[in-house]
């Protein structure tokens, strides 16, 4: 049974993530109107916002520790926030600043915070194999840490995902795969390209449990993830969890969504996992004032992170030449050994 403090933690994560995405949308559109120019404004490049996905990140990460590994896809902010990624440095990275997580070299699809073992990748399903590798490392070291790979429903037809399911299953790795089903792979509704009704059915082909959380309800996600993460932590192998979420915004900012029926967009706005969780909090006896305080604190945290990020210096251009390697190019040595080899070679 979920504790009240856990409901409050999830709520804080979710309202932080929602406000974060709404504020980033505002910042992103600065300088990009009236004519949309993707490279203009304080946040350049693509921006994939996760409003409507919050329950998935919060419900799963509630069970994770800093030593557990998470890989997220191109829509990563809500997962990063729930995993405890440094919000200020993450925001600085999104604004392309020197003190960002990747010194401005990664951007919003490539956020790495080794302090909490979080990484994300902009290539569909390609976070799955490294998550399996983190699980493999945990198994080899005989620790009880786990790894979680988040992916979208559009990724379930990718080889990297399917190969990783098999790899994790055959080696009984402590890995949880979490499909966030928001119904749309950019403009492609899943029914047109995937011949199973639900992604969780994929588990059947790999002899692992597959569960689906139909409503994007944080408590339901929490319960499903408790079992899946617990199974991994107890060294009983991988689980596939699918969560129905909703895409409240375009695939990327600037996406006019002409392909998407009005009623689908309205339905996504109408169902809100945050309102649901507020009702759960009230039902658990949490006062409205406490809920307001949590929301207020989350908003302040987001505002502080954005203000801090925008105040950070931009990278020195010459830094572009650094960080391809951590060791010197020569490896661990700069000197040749001296041996006298028979025959005169070397």
């Amino acid at each position, binding site marked *: 049974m979920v504790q009240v403090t856990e409901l409050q933690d999830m709520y804080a994560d979710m309202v932080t993530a929602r406000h974060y995405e709404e504020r980033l949308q505002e910042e992103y559109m600065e300088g990009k109107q009236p004519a949309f120019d993707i490279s203009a404004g304080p946040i350049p490049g693509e921006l994939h916002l996760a409003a409507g996905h919050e329950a998935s990140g919060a419900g799963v990460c509630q069970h994770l520790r800093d030593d557990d590994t998470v890989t997220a896809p191109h829509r990563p902010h809500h997962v990063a926030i729930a995993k405890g990624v440094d919000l200020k440095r993450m925001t600085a990275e999104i604004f392309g600043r020197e003190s960002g997580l990747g010194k401005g070299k990664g951007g919003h699809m490539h956020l790495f915070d080794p302090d909490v073992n979080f990484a994300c990748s902009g290539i569909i399903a390609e976070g799955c194999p490294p998550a399996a590798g983190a699980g493999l490392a945990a198994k080899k070291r005989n620790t009880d840490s786990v790894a979680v790979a988040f992916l979208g429903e559009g990724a379930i037809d990718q080889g990297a995902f399917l190969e990783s399911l098999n790899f994790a299953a055959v080696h009984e790795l402590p890995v949880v795969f979490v499909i966030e089903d928001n119904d749309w792979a950019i403009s492609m509704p899943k029914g047109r390209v995937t011949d199973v009704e639900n992604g969780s059915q994929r588990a059947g082909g790999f002899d692992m449990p597959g569960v689906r959380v139909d409503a994007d309800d944080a408590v339901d996600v929490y319960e499903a993830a408790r079992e899946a993460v617990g199974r991994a932590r107890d060294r009983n192998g991988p689980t596939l969890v699918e969560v129905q979420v909703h895409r409240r915004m375009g695939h990327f900012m600037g996406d006019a969504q002409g392909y998407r029926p009005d009623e689908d967009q309205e339905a996504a706005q109408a169902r809100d996992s945050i309102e649901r969780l507020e009702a759960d909090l009230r039902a658990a006896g949490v006062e409205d004032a406490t809920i307001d305080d949590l929301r207020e604190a989350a908003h302040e945290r987001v505002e502080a992170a954005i203000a801090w990020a925008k105040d950070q210096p931009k990278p020195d251009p010459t830094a572009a030449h650094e960080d391809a390697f951590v060791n010197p190019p020569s*490896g661990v040595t700069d000197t040749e050994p001296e041996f006298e080899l028979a025959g005169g070679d*070397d």
Partner: protein
Amino acid sequence: MAQTQEGVVERELTMSRAMVEAIADEMREDEEVFYMGEDVADYGGIFDSTAGLREEFGYDRIMDVPISETAYLGAAVGAAQAGMRPIAELMFVDFFGVAMDQIYNQMAKNTYMSGGNVNVPMVLTAAVGGYYNDAAQHSQTLYGTFAHLPGMKVVVPSTAYDAKGLMHNAIRDDDPVVYMFHKRLMGIGWMPAPDGPKTPVPETDYTIPFGSADVKREGADVTIVTLGLHVHRALEAAESLAEDGVDAEVIDLRTLVPLDDETILESVAKTGRLVVVDEDYRSFGVTGEIVARVAESSLADLEAVERVAAADVPIPYARSLENEMLPATEDIASAVRETQ
């Protein structure tokens, strides 16, 4: 062989034995080193890259994996980012296509994209090369492809001595290293090697730095720059050229990333003539890169330049066809004569 003397290394190993010796030594020293690949446990690697290791280290550390290069190369990336030191093998480098995202979008870029906050201390081993009629999908070297994409150190040993020292450096390095071993150099019973790659190898561990080319033969008249199998072909060509009074210097690059410009430039300053020999495709590759670097830095030193490389077609099957498109010893000798 020379008389046994104090301090002289007599023991000769094949390149595969030398490579395996370095891996075994590192695995004994560090529990975090392990090897993943197809047919690496009971088989010992199709090209002897892990021969005998399963017997000592067991299935947990010499791991046979599903035929899922994306999954297990990616798992190596994840384990490396968790601080382990995996070695993952592509049975043939030609199979890179099924897993290239993990190689160049994850393994090679995560360090940079994280601003150096994450590192990927893994070795990707891959068998390369042709000259045994295995046709277009099993004969390439792809040296230029891997060296072109930033974020990977690229190692190509040509002798047992180099193979061991470069492998020690590769495993201990905190960055991703692609270690490309030529099938024809390994000393496999069913694929005879030329004489050159079997060399004396010290029993102790030692590291050879990356970015340090080796002058395998000193000469005054022409500089031959090459790597891998063609080090031995260039040495053979140099012997026949010597009979004609042409004294060739042979430089073995040993690593493509980083590249030892200095040794090449010093040699060209001496000889004035440059021949670059590569088993990879001619266009947009190693030969063009070496020539460009010499031209940029020392144009005045250059009196003549020749390139010897694979023709720009897929590698054909029939012997007569493969021989036509891959560079042979005689091709090197005639290219050198062109410069004289």
